[in-house]
């Protein structure tokens, strides 16, 4: 059995009361109860995570990609400068980022296995583990064996977004490339968990489909992973579609109020779930979301390959960010809001 079987079952109606409750928390009707939900979600978050927010930053290793995702700046059809960091360049970026004090890094590549093979990732990890206490990957979906190889090198976290849980919408958004294989991607988080990743982070790209349905299935997916892999920390991200070089417009608009409802519903449904909010969201909104259930934030982000130390052409970013504050500024904001910024929460064993 895999999550696909659960997914297939719940495409129809659910009779599980807990799941029904989650679905009602995401409903239009629940919009009139946001304050009550917020109080509950705030208390659950405080109890489970305390007054702390974990900080991390992404490092883009390569923007070579084999897929044609109509909403993404790395789309194979896009005429943008392509770049893949050499190991020396990886080391320079690592030195820069770790000098700011960040100890958690998320490394990303475009989804080209050919240009960015597992061997390349492993070589990068060997460099990075000298500088970071926690290394997560956000790359093409791998096999369980490949994930295990990466874990053995020092990777402890896996991030992989399904983008949308609607198979039809998925196929319309991903026109060509290996990413068209919906199921291989859907089962990647559990393969990672079986390979002993410590953290598994899933997500949907809000705007590609009816967000209520997508978030519902993402919540079920997170619950499935929590239930089946009790020794893995499960987290979610809820990115909204941002402007990118292709200027693709969202199919469904997702308002600030919708984002708030999503965070509250997820927190009440799964009190121990990690919830990340990235620099896709603007500073004021990110601050307002803090007490509602957020546990992790990215800071000082660049979505360009080598964006911290190497100048690359303007168009070569994955998407535009909205919060361009540096790490010190984000730390200061957190302190003012009564949160302890956590820069280190793991160690290479």
């Amino acid at each position, binding site marked *: 059995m895999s999550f696909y079987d659960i997914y297939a079952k719940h495409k129809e109606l659910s009779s599980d009361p807990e799941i029904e409750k989650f679905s009602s928390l995401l409903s239009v009707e629940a919009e009139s109860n946001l304050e009550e939900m917020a109080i509950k979600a705030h208390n659950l978050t*405080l*109890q*489970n*995570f*305390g*007054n*702390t927010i974990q900080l991390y930053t992404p490092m883009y290793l390569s923007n070579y990609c084999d897929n044609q995702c109509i909403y993404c700046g790395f789309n194979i059809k896009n005429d943008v400068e392509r770049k893949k960091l050499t190991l020396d360049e990886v080391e320079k970026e690592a030195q820069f980022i770790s000098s700011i*004090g960040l*100890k958690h890094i998320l490394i990303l590549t475009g989804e080209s296995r050919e240009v960015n093979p597992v061997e390349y990732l492993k070589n990068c990890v060997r460099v990075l583990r000298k500088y970071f*206490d926690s290394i997560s990957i956000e790359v093409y979906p791998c096999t369980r064996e490949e994930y295990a190889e990466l874990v053995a090198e020092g990777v402890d976290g896996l991030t992989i977004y399904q983008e949308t849980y609607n198979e039809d919408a998925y196929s319309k958004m991903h026109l060509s490339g290996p990413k068209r294989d919906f199921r291989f991607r859907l089962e990647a988080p559990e393969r990672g968990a079986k390979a002993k990743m*410590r953290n598994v982070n899933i997500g949907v790209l809000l705007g590609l489909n009816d967000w209520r349905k997508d978030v519902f299935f993402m919540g079920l997916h997170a619950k499935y992973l*929590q*239930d089946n892999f*009790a*020794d*893995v*920390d*499960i987290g979610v991200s809820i990115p909204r579609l941002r402007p990118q070089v292709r200027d693709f417009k969202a199919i469904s608009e997702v308002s600030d109020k919708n984002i708030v409802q999503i965070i509250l519903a997820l927190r009440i449904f799964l009190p*121990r779930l990690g919830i990340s909010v990235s620099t896709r969201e603007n500073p004021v909104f990110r601050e307002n979301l803090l007490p509602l259930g957020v546990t992790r934030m990215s800071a000082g982000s660049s979505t360009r390959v080598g964006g911290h130390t190497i100048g690359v052409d303007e168009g070569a970013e994955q998407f535009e960010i909205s919060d361009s504050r540096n790490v010190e500024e984000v730390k200061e904001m957190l*302190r003012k809001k*009564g*949160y*302890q910024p*956590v*820069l*280190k*929460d*793991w*160690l290479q*064993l």
Partner: protein
Amino acid sequence: MEDILEIAGKKIKNRLFIGTGKFASYKIMQEALMAAEAEVVTVALRRVDIGAKSENILDYIPKACTIMINTSGARNAEEAVRIARMAKAGGAGNWIKIEVIADNKYLLPDNLETLKAAEILVKDGFVVLPYMSPDLSFGRRMAEAGAAAVMPLGSPIGSNRGFKTRELVRIMVGELKVPVIVDAGIGKPSDACECMEMGCAAVLINTAVAISKDPVNIAKAFRLAVCAGRAAYLSGIPETNDFANPSSPLTGFLR
């Protein structure tokens, strides 16, 4: 005579141990530790950045405290042992709270893996305090393995649900030769007091202090509650009766 808890040769007056996670800042944590007059403090090695230029949690722990590094994040004995050895190599002392958790939903400890880690770490020369689910047999085995104390949970970590495991802990207190310290789940000072009245050697509190609106004041309250509970235990608490027991008995004239 002074009431002293002795663990591995260290004489401890204050039976309130404090955990250092979840605080809004290291400064507030430091103030709470001082208000609690803490002598034993636990710190997760995963949070310690030994080479840190500015914020190093250890700098905020009063010098008089004994730091007990915990192995938070360990999923099995092997990982716990590795974390403990890294702590010692990094100069963080040799008191270890073994914490092995392979259940991220309820954060309940794995007693078998904890025992395995305890056996190894005692041989390595650590002062070992295992965090465990309350269980007499495992408690005995931990003690036989050389644990300096055992630390059964009161209820799940961070839950603030209070002393739900009291009947099992009572048995451990009665039977084990090592100190029994209730760790986790204690939500309010009266819970801590109850643990102490029962004869527990100490309590370890974290979440209830760290997420309080006034960590300093609640730390003081816990300190008082622990003292009160301990004093009551030492004084001997009279048994409870189902009926009233008048101080001038009705049949007193027969004597």
